[in-house]
C-alpha cells in the first residue's frame, strides 16, 4: 500500500477515473463543429521566409569594373526575398541549378551578382538575359553569413574577384558604424563603387593580411583561393564559400547507371567533373540545393564502382549514418570508373 486508501476513497477514486473518458468526450461534444483550420502565424511566416521556387523578372543588368555582372531583379509576385547577407539564390536554367549570391543587403531592392566568365558555364545564361526576361529563383540557401552570437564583433572578410557579390552584400548589411567591425581585403581586384574605407585591394592570395586579435576569418572565392586562405590562417578556423565547381585534371569518360523510382538510365560522366554536374547535364531528375556538400539534398547510394571525394576525410560533409550505408553526395565526388547509383 503506497497511498493511504480505504474502500471509501477507492470508490471516490474510481468515480474520478471513470470520469476521465466522460470529461474528454464532453470536451469533444462541446467543441467548435466547424472545419478545422490549419494555423497562420508561424506556418505562414515560414512560407514567406522560404517561398520555394518562384518567378522573378530581370529589371536591369550592369557590369562592374571587375567584370561582375549585377542583375537587379524583382519577384513577379509576392514579397521580396528574405535572406542573410552572404546567402545565395538558386537559379534554374536548362535543368541545371546553381546558387548565385545576393549582392544586395537584406531590405534593399534585390540584386544578384556573379562573374560570368571563368566560372560555372551555367552562369553564362545570366549574360544572355535582357531586361524584362523572367528567371526562376529559389532563395535563400547557404551558410556563409555573419552570425553575431557565434562570430563576435570583429570580422576579417576576404575575397577574390568572384567573391565580390557576397562581399558587397555583407559590407552593406553591416555598414561602417554598425556593432560589427569589418575589415575587407579583395585580391586581384580594382576598386569597385561599393568599396568603402574598410576595403583594401591586394594583388593576390599571397598578400593577405595578418589576422588582428580574435577576428573571425571569412573567405569567398574560387576553390584555390579558399584553400590558400585556409593555409594562410591555419590553424584558425576559416569560414569559406567557394564560387566554382570542383574540377579535376582528368578527361576519361565513364558510364553511370542510375536506378530511380522512374527506372534505369545510363549517363555519361567525366572523371574531371562532379557526378552531379554529369547527372544534371544528362537531364536526370536529382535534387540539389547547396552544391557544396553540406545540405545532403543530392544524397544517393553508391551501389558499385569507385569514386574520389573532393573533401579530405576530416571534412567529409556526409552524415555518419549515411557513410555506413554507402551514401554519397554527388556534388562532391568524381567518378573513377563506371559506377552504379540508386536515387
Amino acid at each position, binding site marked *: *500500500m*503506497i*497511498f493511504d*486508501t480505504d474502500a471509501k*476513497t*477507492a*470508490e471516490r*477514486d*474510481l468515480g*474520478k*477515473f471513470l470520469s*476521465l*473518458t466522460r*470529461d*474528454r*468526450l464532453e*470536451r*469533444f461534444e*462541446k*467543441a*467548435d*463543429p*466547424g*472545419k*478545422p483550420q*490549419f*494555423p*497562420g*502565424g*508561424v*506556418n*505562414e*511566416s*515560414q512560407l514567406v*521566409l522560404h517561398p520555394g521556387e518562384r518567378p522573378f523578372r530581370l529589371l536591369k543588368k550592369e557590369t562592374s569594373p571587375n567584370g561582375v555582372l549585377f542583375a537587379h531583379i524583382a519577384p513577379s509576385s509576392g*514579397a521580396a526575398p*528574405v535572406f542573410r547577407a552572404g546567402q545565395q539564390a538558386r537559379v534554374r536554367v536548362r535543368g541545371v541549378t546553381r546558387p548565385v549570391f545576393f549582392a544586395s543587403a*537584406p531590405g534593399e531592392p534585390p540584386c544578384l551578382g556573379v562573374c560570368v566568365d571563368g566560372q560555372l558555364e551555367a552562369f553564362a545564361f545570366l549574360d544572355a538575359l535582357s531586361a524584362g526576361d523572367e528567371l526562376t529563383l529559389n532563395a535563400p540557401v547557404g*551558410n556563409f553569413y555573419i552570425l*553575431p*552570437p*557565434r562570430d563576435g564583433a570583429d570580422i576579417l572578410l576576404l575575397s577574390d574577384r568572384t567573391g565580390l557579390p557576397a562581399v558587397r552584400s555583407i559590407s552593406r548589411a553591416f555598414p561602417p558604424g554598425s556593432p560589427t567591425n569589418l575589415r575587407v581585403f579583395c585580391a586581384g581586384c580594382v576598386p569597385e563603387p561599393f568599396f568603402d574605407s574598410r576595403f583594401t585591394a591586394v594583388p593576390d592570395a599571397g598578400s593577405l593580411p595578418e589576422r588582428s586579435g580574435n577576428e573571425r576569418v571569412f573567405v569567398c572565392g574560387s576553390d584555390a583561393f579558399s584553400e590558400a586562405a585556409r593555409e594562410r590562417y591555419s590553424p584558425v*578556423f576559416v*569560414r569559406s564559400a567557394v564560387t566554382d565547381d570542383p574540377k579535376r585534371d582528368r578527361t576519361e569518360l565513364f558510364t553511370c547507371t542510375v536506378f530511380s*523510382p522512374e527506372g534505369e538510365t545510363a549517363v555519361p560522366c567525366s572523371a574531371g567533373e562532379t557526378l552531379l554536374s554529369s547527372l544534371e547535364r544528362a537531364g536526370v531528375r536529382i*535534387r540539389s540545393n547547396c552544391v557544396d*556538400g*553540406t545540405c*545532403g*539534398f543530392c*544524397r544517393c547510394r553508391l551501389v558499385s564502382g569507385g569514386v574520389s571525394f573532393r573533401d579530405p576525410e*576530416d*571534412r567529409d560533409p*556526409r*552524415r*555518419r*549514418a*549515411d557513410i*555506413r*550505408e554507402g551514401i554519397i553526395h554527388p556534388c562532391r565526388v568524381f567518378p573513377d570508373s563506371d559506377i552504379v547509383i540508386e536515387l
Partner: protein
Amino acid sequence: MKHYDAVVIGSGVGGLAAGAVLAKNGLNVAVLEKNHCPGGVANSFRRGRFEFEISLHELCGFGPPENPVGSSRRVLDALGLSDRIEWARVPEAYRLITFAEDSPIDAVMPFGTRAFADALESYAPGSRGPAEKAFALAGEIRRALSDLGRASGPEEKRACLLSHPDFLRAAGLSVDEGLRQLGMPERGADIMKGYWAYLFTDCSELSFLHYLNMVNSYIELGSVIPKNRSLELTNAFAGYIRERGGDVLTDSEVTRIMCEGGAVRGVRTRSGAEYAADGVVCNISPLSVYSLLLEEGDVTAFDRKKTNARELSGRGFCVYLGLDRSARELGLENYSYFIYPDMDTASQYRSAGSTATNLIQNTVCQNAADEEASPPGTCILTMTTLFSSDVWGGVAPEDYHAEKDAFAARMISVFEKATGISISHHIEEMEVAAPQTFARYIGSPEGAIYGYKAASWDSILARKLMDGKDSDIRGLYFAGGFGMNLNGYSSAMSSGMDAAERLLGRRDAR
C-alpha cells in the same frame, strides 16, 4: 494506379515503425516522405566539422537485453534492429539547476532507482522514503495497466480497478498532488520534477501517472543515444522496410487522402501520383489531416469537433553549437542540463509564452555520452526550449533573423550564468532552429514538436481509455508525436507499432 496494402504518410519515427511492423507482417507497404531524406526530425545535419543531432536527447525505454520491458526495446527487438545500432550509454539522469530563487538547486541525479533515491536524500533530507514509494508505485501502475488490458467487460474492469487502489489514486492526481500525497519534501519534489520539460505540461496539471511512468522508465532502465545520430535509426527502419519489398519514397508529399463510403481508398501526392491503399497511417498531425488532406465532405462532425478541441503542446526552439574545445577543457562534465529559473512549473509554463520571459532550457553535451561525437579538441552542445504559444508567428519576416539570433544569444548567456561554464568565445559552428524551422521541415502546426498538450482532460490515460478508434474514417490511423502515446522517440516507436497492429486487426477482421 499502384496498389499498396498500406500507405504511411510521413517517415518520422512513428511512421517508420508502423511501416516496419506492417512489412514484417507481410503487407506491401509504402512510406511517403515529403523531404529528400527520411526521418523527419529523427535526423542530423552537418555544419563544418560537426554533425548535429536534430532532436534526440536520449532514448528511454531501452534497458539491457535481459530486461526488455521498455517501449523502444520492445519495438526494436521485434524488428531485430536493436543490435544493428551502435549505442552509447548516457552517463547520468540529469543535472538540475535553478538560478532565480533564494536557495538555488544544483543536483546531479544518477540512474538506478536506489542511487536516485540516495542522491535525492542527500539533496533533500526526508526524500528517500517517498522516492522509493514513487518507484514502487510505478511498478504497481505497470501491473494495473497490464491487468486492465486483460479484463473484459465493465464488471471485470471495475473489479480489476478496485483491486488496484494505488493505481486508481495515482490516475486522478497531478504531479504536484501526487508527490505531496507521497509525503515528498518540497525540495525533493522540485528535484524529481526536473524532467517536466520533456512533457511540457506544468506539474499542477500534468498526470502523475504519465510523469511517474516516464521518470521510472529513465531511472530504472537508463537511456542511450545512437553514436551515428538518429539517422542511424531512420536508415535502419527504412532499410528494414525496403528489404521486405516495401517502398520508402522521398520527395513525395501527400496532398490528398482519398475516401469512399467512409473508408480510405488511397492517397495522392503533390506531383499527381496516386496510390491505392486499404489502410493509411498518418505520421503527421490530425490537424493537418482533417484541415488539409481530406475532402471536407469526408470528415465527420465528431472528427471535426475532436480536432478543434485539442491544444498544441510546445513549439520548438533549438540552438546547436559546435565548440572548438573539448568538453573536458571547457568544464562540461554532464550530459543533460535542465536549467530553469525555479520549479514553479505553472509560472514557467506561462513565461514560456513570450520570448521576453522564456528562460527554460534543456541542454545536452553529446560528448559526455560519446567522446567521439565530434573531432578531438571539440564538443557539441545543443540547447532546447519550448514555447507555450505561437509567439514566433508574430515576428515579421524582416525581423526574424535578428530576433532568432538575440534569443539564441540569451539562451547561451543563461547557460553560462547557471553553470559558470564559459562557451561564447569558443563557438565555431552554430545553427538556430525556431518554430518556423520545424514548421517548414516537418509541416507541424505552429512548429509544435511535442504533439498535442497533455492537458488534464487529454492525458495519456484518458486517450488510451477512450481512443478505441483513430478516426470515424475506416482504415485511417495515427502514429507519432500527435498520436495516442504523446511525444518522445520511445512513445513514437510504440505508437507506430500500435497503429500497425490496429490496421492489421481491421484487415484480419475483414
